């Protein structure tokens, strides 16, 4: 997904002379061909995120479309004020590409784990927040970025992610994609973003084997949220489950529940939000191991869904 995203920048730059790449202190030889072919549109500016964001803003004020890339924690919380003032207040078409969204950098510890990137980015006016589920969907997203007038945060997964997106579903920024439709309206709805959609599809298989009627909705654009599609699936649902690789405070699940509370009122369906607790991760290891720690594996998502259904029945 990361390689695809960066290669797409070069591809877009060949198509559109407004495209500029700015990295901080990334891998040697990154986008070397682009650097050679268009040296005035390729920049590597060192460990200086505040300046990189402001510089991108200055270029965007002059009509360019900068694609800025560094590690997700550093492109969000390290320079949050620059993102807010330089990009969002001026409403500029700068693209922020965050490597290692969520728990990708598990072995590197909490300084490198972007657990609140979705929450803090979506709090900013004018910011668009995206988390696609695989490399093929990344291509579709990147093709849309040339014409999107506002700043975009692009959350990257680890790479080598299984391809679950489908060409025939199309791609529009701000439009969620139903990946699996339940037979009945009163069903379980799993709503996810990023690669958690992949885990939810696997969880849905497990739930189906257990006799549950399940829908899966993939929300690649967390903001602006596709209210129409989310409400279509949530209205009358037996249970809505949101799944995210990030904090439950203010993140994707919050975005969905904010909408449901506001629009459905007393008809609010039961909601289970699966995500990270309010704590810095204390463990290292593999991303998959942290998924297990936080209950984000397909089996755990399925099991927690079943448990919530049982609790709901008891309450009823």
């Amino acid at each position, binding site marked *: 997904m990361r390689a695809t995203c960066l290669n797409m920048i070069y591809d877009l730059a060949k198509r559109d002379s407004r495209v500029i790449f700015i990295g901080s202190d990334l891998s040697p030889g990154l986008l070397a061909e682009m650097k050679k072919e268009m040296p005035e549109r390729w920049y590597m500016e060192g460990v*200086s995120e505040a300046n990189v964001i402001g510089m991108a*803003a*200055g*270029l965007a004020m*002059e009509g360019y479309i900068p694609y800025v890339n560094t590690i997700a924690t550093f492109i969000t919380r390290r320079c949050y004020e620059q993102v807010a003032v*330089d990009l969002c207040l001026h409403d500029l078409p700068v693209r922020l590409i965050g490597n290692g969204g969520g728990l990708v950098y598990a072995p590197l510890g909490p300084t490198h784990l972007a657990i609140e990137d979705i929450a803090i980015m979506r709090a900013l006016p004018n910011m668009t927040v995206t988390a696609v589920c695989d490399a093929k969907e990344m291509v579709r997203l990147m093709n849309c970025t040339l014409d999107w007038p506002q700043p975009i945060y692009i959350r990257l997964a680890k790479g080598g992610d299984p391809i679950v997106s489908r060409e025939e579903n199309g791609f529009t920024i701000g439009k969620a994609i139903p990946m699996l439709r339940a037979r009945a309206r009163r069903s379980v709805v799993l709503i996810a973003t990023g690669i958690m959609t992949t885990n939810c599809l696997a969880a849905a298989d497990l739930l189906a084997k257990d006799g549950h009627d399940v829908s899966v909705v993939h929300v690649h654009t967390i903001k602006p949220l596709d209210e129409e599609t989310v409400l279509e699936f949530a209205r009358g649902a037996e249970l809505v489950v949101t799944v995210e690789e990030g904090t439950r405070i203010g993140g994707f699940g919050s975005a969905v529940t904010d909408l449901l509370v506001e629009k459905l009122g007393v008809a609010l369906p039961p909601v289970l939000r699966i995500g990270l607790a309010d704590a810095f991760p204390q463990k290292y290891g593999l991303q998959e191991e942290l998924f297990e720690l936080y209950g984000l594996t397909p089996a755990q998502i399925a099991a927690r869904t079943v448990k919530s259904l049982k609790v709901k029945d008891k309450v009823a």
Partner: protein
Amino acid sequence: MAGAQATQEMNVATPPLDERSKYLRRLVVRTLHGGERGHVGSSMSLVEIMRVLYDDILRFRADEPMWRWRDRMILSKGHGCIAQYVMLAEKGFIPYEALDTFCRRDSILGGHPEAGKILGVEASTGSLGHGLSYGVGMALAARIDRRDSRIIVVMGDGEINEGSVWEAALCAGKHKLSNLTAVIDYNKVQSAGPTREVQDLEPLLDKWRAFNFAAVEVDGHDVEALRKVFRGLPLAADQPSAVICHTVKGKGIAFAENDANWHHKSKIGKDVIARLYAALE
């Protein structure tokens, strides 16, 4: 530390304020009156810098504010905006009457300048330490476009406490942005008190030079001296320029000069306005 001494001890005989400088300061007071508040000291120290830039240096078209070939002036110390608002009125970007609405609910003129609301304002500032990075991006854009626009970023001395300023300076030096000029309104008094006590900047000239800027010092209230320096930009063919302007906080208002208590004032009543006008006679 010769540089430190040179910077701090530069003590040129500033010529007395001429009629235009006093007139512009009266417009600043008019604006303060309109809002009953404002950054008094921070605006007064900037008046000659803004005056010379708009009167003699910057290329612009007030009837075509986004003219592509214009020079870009970013007031990075956005709290000094009244000094810029006054010049924007002088040059026809905004009506004089707008000054009387300063900070009012429906005014275009807030306590910090906003692009998109005020014609002639390139970027919204107020949060300090952002402007030089905008300038780097704009200077790179001008280079890519083969456009000879000059980019001038005016910063305060307290502002350059911000680390982001020095990130931007490293970057500008690396790219040899000779179309970029950093101007420092070095009035030596920030909000909390003397810069020397709050966060000493010395040796300031040496700092900019160490970041690969061509740097000079000038009396920031000497109109002729400012003209000479700005007309000589860039200071070097393959370096960004830094112009350190030695100024006086609250310049022209004897009772407010060099007094951190006049950095910003709210609830400015008619009596204070009368005293400010009287000080300028």
